[in-house]
């Protein structure tokens, strides 16, 4: 952020005097905190993407790679609703989420269910095929140009030298609320209980009368709706473009690897860690290589603790 660096400016000859080491340390500290703050916003979106992936993976054992492209589709849809048709941002997201949910259910029914009993690798290859199809569809429907969803949240707040943009705040709060909502849904409702039962032991759940087909549909609906919301937030915060979806799917999985497979708190922590480390890398090292650095973090975690930050051994 350019704004965060403004205290650096020191006039002419006074420079040597005014940059005492203590002050420089303070400025570096402020800049560090600024990058952490910026990273939390994008990190919360990573958590949202990862949450959609982790419910599908935990319950159905599918590495649903097309999730990122579906999220991009949702982002584009939100863009059409809000910018082209003039619907308010959150209403547009609320309209796009059910569309995503229906698409997710169709994908589960038509593409994944036929290979449910085949080796897991087949489902993954299908996920890659779906990615190509959705990416192709996005390209055909929305074009190859970069798209940014315009929002009315353009203010910037200042807290003691730290700058917080209203948009980042809105994104963070939205993502956190959605993550909390889904967690409550999974932990407190009867459907949530059956979802967790299938995750724990599919055969036992079937014997207890859980309808696995219904659970699969519900899981894909929730996951895809979350993905659509994440896509809309990405479109507002960064931009939508071809290939962005794939990169977000990879980052979603990177979050799962970071946090530890199948761990919900791990996904939350992993998302924030990835977002913050990426933001720090962009601020202090190189913004062109920020993705490279975030993937290196993932590889480093794999090397040092393959079970992830919060995973079970």
């Amino acid at each position, binding site marked *: 952020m350019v704004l965060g660096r403004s205290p650096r400016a020191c006039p002419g000859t006074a420079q040597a005097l005014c940059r005492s080491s203590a002050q420089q340390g303070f400025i570096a500290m402020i800049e560090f905190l600024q990058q952490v703050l910026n990273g939390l916003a994008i990190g919360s979106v990573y958590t949202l993407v990862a949450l959609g992936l982790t419910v599908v993976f935990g319950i159905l054992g599918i*590495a649903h790679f097309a999730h990122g492209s579906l999220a991009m589709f949702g982002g584009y849809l939100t863009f059409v609703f809000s910018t082209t048709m003039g619907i308010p941002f959150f209403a547009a997201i609320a309209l796009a989420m059910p569309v995503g949910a229906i698409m997710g259910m169709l994908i589960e029914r038509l593409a994944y269910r036929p*290979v449910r009993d085949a080796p897991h690798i087949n489902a*993954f290859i299908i996920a890659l095929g779906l990615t190509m199809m959705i990416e192709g*569809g996005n*390209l055909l429907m929305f074009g190859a140009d970069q798209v940014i969803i315009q929002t009315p949240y353009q203010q910037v707040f200042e807290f003691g030298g730290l700058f917080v943009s209203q948009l980042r705040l809105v994104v963070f709060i939205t993502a956190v609320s959605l993550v909390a909502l889904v967690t409550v849904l999974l932990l407190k409702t009867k459907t949530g209980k059956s979802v967790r039962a299938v995750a724990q032991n599919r055969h036992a759940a079937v014997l207890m009368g859980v309808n696995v087909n219904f659970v699969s549909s519900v899981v894909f609906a929730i996951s895809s709706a979350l993905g659509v919301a994440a896509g809309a937030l990405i479109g507002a915060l960064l931009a939508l473009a071809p290939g962005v979806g794939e990169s977000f799917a990879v980052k979603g999985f990177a979050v799962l690897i970071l946090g530890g497979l199948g761990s919900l708190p791990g996904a939350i922590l992993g998302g924030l860690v990835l977002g913050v480390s990426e933001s720090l890398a962009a601020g202090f090292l190189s913004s062109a*290589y920020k993705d490279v650095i975030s*993937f*290196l973090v993932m590889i480093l975690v794999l090397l040092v603790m393959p079970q992830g930050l919060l995973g079970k051994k």
Partner: protein
Amino acid sequence: MKRNFGFPLVAGVAMVLGALALPHAMSTPYYIHLLTLALIWIVLAQGQNLTQGFVGYVSIAQAGFMGIGAYASTLLTVNFGFSVWMTLFLAPLFTGFAALLAGYPSLRVKGHYFSIVTLAYNMVIFIVLMTFSALTGGEAGIPNVPRPSELNLFGHVFSFEGRSNLNYYALALFCAALVTGLCAMVLHSRVGRVMLAIRQNEDLAEAMGVITSRYKLFAFVLSSMLAGLAGTLYAHYIGFLNPEPFGVDQSLNVILAVILGGSGTLMGPIVGAVSVTFLPEILRFADSFRLITYGLILVVATIFLPKGLVPLAMGLWRRLRSHAPSPKA
């Protein structure tokens, strides 16, 4: 089980001779160009098949490693004056070394997660090729990548210059045949059997005392070396190098080639590579739908034809010869 090596060997030689004669039956040079590309793709797909088909680990970095080979060879020839004949060996070795470094951490995760990590590698490679312009020329690329120098063989001088060059076609064919032979040797060796065992049941293989990670790393490194070779062949054939052909999309196309042809077979990648090279020509009327069509083929093939075209054709052939001795390929 006794194996009869005579028939595959005769069939292989016949195929190579047939492929050598094929361009002479073509009237348009464009088809020779496509066939050369198809041969390069066979090298690429055979490499992919080592990990995807034999070990059952889908790597999504094949195009990235192809890029490493292509750039390594190009930079060595353009900047340091190496001969292309040298870099045909050096570039795959360099790629293999990169794969050794990359494979060690990534093979700590199993199944899908390995795929995701390799996908991250492909993205990293692509970003570096695009961004590190001082070395790679960035998006604008490197023009005038040289062809191999003239080869003097038994008094005949073979030149490799010009479009749709038949000698370059022969070189690519030689590499494709060599690589296929190598894969056949690996498949029928003890190492190959262990690789198949890992695909069938990794936990059981580990319980039997096999250090599976070594075999997985071996397959990954060898696979990447073949990708590097394909990249080298590609760069010096096309003559212009930029990062575009080494993105994730291309890696997905390699996976499609292996699945479509038949993963885990030796003929599968050949059929798949040729299909994927010629598919855009057939689908030319629907160019903007190409990505969708490829994806649809991948999904439909995985659901309805999970073993691929080659095992399907072989199954039909066996059914015709009803007295076939054993249903094992």
